């Protein structure tokens, strides 16, 4: 599926455990590999873990499962806390 890169800006990012991560601020392109390297995600959910002092996260493209109306990424244990683990 071909998309203009500006369509990605502002999309909400969720993990596959339905945890909100943030919204897409920017897309990092690897010029040599001619590929999307990562998504720069801002407006972070303060609940997901140790993000104090960070304005954003870079989500590597390989953990992205799908992009449509939202961005769905793999839930990486230890990086993202899921609501159940918090208790």
């Amino acid at each position: 599926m071909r998309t203009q890169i500006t369509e990605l800006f502002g999309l909400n990012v969720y993990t596959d455990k339905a945890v909100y991560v943030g919204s897409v601020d920017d897309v990092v392109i690897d010029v040599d590999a001619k590929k999307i390297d990562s998504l720069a995600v801002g407006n972070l959910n303060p609940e997901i873990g140790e993000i104090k002092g960070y304005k954003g996260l870079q989500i590597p493209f390989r953990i992205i499962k799908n992009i449509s109306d939202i961005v769905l990424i793999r839930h990486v244990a230890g990086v993202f806390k899921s609501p159940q683990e918090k208790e």
Partner: protein
Amino acid sequence: MSKTFSRTMARKRVMSTDGVLIGTIKNVMVDLGTGQVVDLIVKPDESFRTEGYRMDGDKMFVPFEAVKDIKDYIVVDRYLLQKSA
């Protein structure tokens, strides 16, 4: 390895390896399935003759294959650009 933020690419000028100004970048087409960057969408400069290139209305498609590097300018290989037209 050279990486670039797509927002910093906005409004950058596209120049060919032989020093001809082609135009300004408008957008980037990506394949979300593979993550591959497919095309740059370029608004051609008035001085640039667009015959023989892949066009859609007033927009020009530049295959990302032709892109050499992205720094202050986006440098593309004009030979590669024409071949895919």
